[in-house]
């Protein structure tokens, strides 16, 4: 009987010590618990309560996806720019290579005179 009483006393003391520890929970934790409770109760009204932990994976997945899209778009824009630039260079090269056309421009007065002569004679 004495042993049983001692055991009961021990359990009471343990419960009392645990109660004291609950009374000392800091304000930050209490505020987090209140927010968690409100979120849970919102779930009753179908306002889509979600756990903090469950938000982490989709959010990090979304962040990784956005980063991937950004990287790919930057990569292709860069390649496109290079391609456009190279088209520009090719046109320049063609212009530079077309020596005949430049000679035509140089002798434009002569060709104009030639046409006038033909019209006059003709």
């Amino acid at each position: 009987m004495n042993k049983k009483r001692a055991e009961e006393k021990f359990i009471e003391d343990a419960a009392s010590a645990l109660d004291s520890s609950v009374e000392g929970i800091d304000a930050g934790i209490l505020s987090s618990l209140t927010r968690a409770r409100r979120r849970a109760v919102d779930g009753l009204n179908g306002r889509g309560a979600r756990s903090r932990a469950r938000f982490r994976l989709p959010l990090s997945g979304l962040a990784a996806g956005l980063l991937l899209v950004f990287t790919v778009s930057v990569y292709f824009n860069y390649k496109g720019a290079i391609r456009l630039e190279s088209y520009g260079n090719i046109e320049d090269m063609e212009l530079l290579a077309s020596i005949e056309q430049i000679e035509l421009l140089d002798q434009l007065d002569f060709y104009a005179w030639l046409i006038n002569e033909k019209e006059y004679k003709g």
Partner: protein
Amino acid sequence: MVDINRVMERFLASVERRAFRMAVIATGEKEDALDIVQDAMLGLVKRYAARPEDEWRPLFFKILQNGIRDWGRRRSVRNRCMVWLKGFGKRESGDSTAGRDPVEFFADPKGRCPAERCVISGSMAVLESALGDLPTRQQQAFLLRAWEGLSVAETAIAMGCSAGTVKTLYSRAVHELREVLGEHWP
């Protein structure tokens, strides 16, 4: 008509602090404990809100204990990976106070004198350490029966085992704690 939102909120408010402390004792991590408690709240609302109110308590603690068990499994897998990767399995935490009794750092709202506070926080630290050393199932049985005040049948629901198993686990936990804490605790 009874407002289910208010009843549920009152119930959750009545259990949340003890649930948080149970999770902290089991995990040693405040952030993880908060996640576990929140998941238990959401789980209760989602799955059991339609059940009678007197069934909520064991069901809530059942979800909580499952959450703690899942956390333990994830932690043990992570620790094993850490051992392989880094050659050590230290408990990682950014919080320098991890593993210590968080109550030590909080102001006493009852305004007790330092000597009283020292005795209480000291005895709680010793108890928490002893509880932390118990096997998880014994720890759960002790906290649910001795602290939360669940009956054997309710504890069996919460722990997902038979009433006989609860009695055995609880008896072993009390015996072990008395052994560790000694005759003169607190």
